[in-house]
């Protein structure tokens, strides 16, 4: 097992380096890195001093090494658009996105899993047909359209929920949270639902497909042949086997949530990293783009590692080494 962890760590490292390389090339070759690092209002003296200090005439790998060193410390220079340090910008926006993603993930799981289980067990019933239709809509409706529709119905027409911003936030340590205030919750509902719907659809379809597969296995047949109750068969044997791949796949999807947050944040003007990134893309604000890229890659890699470890915890076949006798 230790060998497995080490191998995954090495792979993770390779991916991070590759991503850093791409970010580096953005930094160096798309525009002027000196401007990125010092801002647009530098004097020519400062610029040339930095140019020598950076060693822009030095070989590629030395520059890359330098970039890596900076990146690991979170130093990505200064945003072209706003003139503030990139690391500061991202630190400000980070909590908003994470909270949104977590609330959405929770929603998607809590609603999606039971829906999927129901659709598998009561296959062909009216309600499960409804669920499948909803899931089809969820896949065919782009997230931004869902957001717009929700705004139209719940914010413009009914006026039940606000349509932009985070509401009142409270500082807990360095983390600004909107989850401790009623207004904060009020504001997070529509964006979280928007973000959750796509995930929910995926989870529901996945759970249903997995469960249907599991229900066809020999061990379920044998469990039925032993006269176990439907509850024991469906919610004991079948559900457990269904959830193992589902949990891990969902964990991997969590990264996708953070990326989809870009869209949701744009629709709802939610002050998170996603909105920052879009503004950067529209403005060609390279330092921000590079920083976002590296951060997202890091988050993905960490999530992947955790999910792999989760497999070990959940599946006994991987856990116990084959010391068992014959």
């Amino acid at each position, binding site marked *: 097992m230790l060998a497995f962890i080490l191998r995954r760590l090495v792979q993770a490292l390779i*991916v991070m380096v*590759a991503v850093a390389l791409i970010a580096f090339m*953005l930094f160096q070759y*798309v*525009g002027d890195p000196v401007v990125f690092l010092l801002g647009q209002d530098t004097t020519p003296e400062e610029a040339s001093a930095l140019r020598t200090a950076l060693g822009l005439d030095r070989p590629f790998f030395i520059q890359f090494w330098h970039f890596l060193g900076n990146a690991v410390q979170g130093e990505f220079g200064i945003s072209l658009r706003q003139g503030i340090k990139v690391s500061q910008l991202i630190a400000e926006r980070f909590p908003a996105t994470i909270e949104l993603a977590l609330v959405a993930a929770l929603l998607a799981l809590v609603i999606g899993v039971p829906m999927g289980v129901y659709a598998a067990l009561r296959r062909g019933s009216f309600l499960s047909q409804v669920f499948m239709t909803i899931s*089809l*809509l969820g*896949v*065919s*409706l*782009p*997230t*931004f*359209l869902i957001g*717009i*529709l929700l*705004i*139209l119905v719940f914010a*413009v027409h009914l006026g039940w929920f606000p349509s932009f911003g985070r509401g009142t936030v409270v500082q807990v340590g360095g983390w600004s949270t909107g989850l401790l205030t009623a207004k904060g919750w009020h504001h997070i509902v529509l964006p979280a639902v928007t973000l959750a719907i796509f995930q929910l659809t995926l989870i529901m379809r996945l759970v249903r497909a997995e469960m249907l597969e599991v229900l066809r296995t020999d061990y379920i047949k044998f469990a039925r042949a032993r006269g176990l109750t439907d509850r024991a068969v469906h919610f004991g044997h079948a559900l457990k086997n269904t959830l193992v791949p589902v949990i891990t796949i969902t964990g*991997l999807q969590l*990264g*996708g949530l953070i*990326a*989809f947050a*870009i*869209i949701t944040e*744009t*629709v709802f003007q939610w002050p998170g990293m996603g909105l920052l*990134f*879009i503004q*950067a*893309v*529209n403005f*060609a604000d*390279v330092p921000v*783009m590079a920083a976002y*890229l590296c951060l*997202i*890659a890091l988050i*993905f890699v960490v999530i*992947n590692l955790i999910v792999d470890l989760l497999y070990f915890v959940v599946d006994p076949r991987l856990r116990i080494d084959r010391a068992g006798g014959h």
Partner: protein
Amino acid sequence: MIVTLKRWLDSDIGYSFRSSPTALVAALIAFICGFAALFAPWVAPHNPFDLATLELANARLPPAWYAEGSKAFLLGSDDQGRDILSAVIYGARISLAVGLVSVVLSVLVGVTLGLLAGYVGGWVDAFLMRLCDVMLSFPAILVALLIAGVGRALFPNAHETLAFGVLILSITLTGWVQYARTVRGSTLVERNKEYVQAARVTGVSSLRIMRRHVLPNVLGPVLVLATIQVATAIITEATLSFLGVGAPPTSPSLGTLIRIGNDYLFSGEWWITIFPGVMLVLIALSVNLLGDWLRDALNPRLR
């Protein structure tokens, strides 16, 4: 042609098609949308891009069934007097075009790379598969945004064609992975079969082997993937356009139209953004349904 159609309708797949009302309806809707989009200049009542025909007096009209609406602008008009119905039809044209072209390119790239990886093997295969793994773990939107962003940074005064090129490129680059994997798997299976080895010994070129033996086997799954991906591509394009990095306002796709209309949501002119949305959903839904039906029809296990 009629004979082939008749033969197809009588086959298993044809039967499955005929007996599935959703597939029929979906195909009908897709066909209508496709037809309208293809023949937009003749189908659309106005040309919304002909600046000469626009009059500000016609601006912000609600749909025809409202009192203030007008029959000439069935679905209303936007802030510059453009007919929404026409804009939607032309927009659908762009959305469908981008979606289809991207998928075709994805299939070409993916199938080729998959064949290569499976047949050549070795480090080429290993490298490509690692690449696929990494690309699959990053969401498509992110990659597409990044490419679009880089394109924007490199070419700040992008010409319209260039904008479309970048758009198609970004969608293509995120879509090829699935095909590569599927085709590679099939290629590996076929490559190890004896008749392929026999063919190699007798000097038949690898290309011919791949074309005649491997391709027919993978066409089924590739077709299902491609159909579902058309819907994904259209939605991705719409999303990119909505975010501002897709089709430009001068040749707006449905996503662009939605973005433009979004600004008028709060002043009550909902039709400017909703109708392009409806069209988008219709297209995506019908293509998805067709893809679902196709997958079930081609899956021997479910029969």
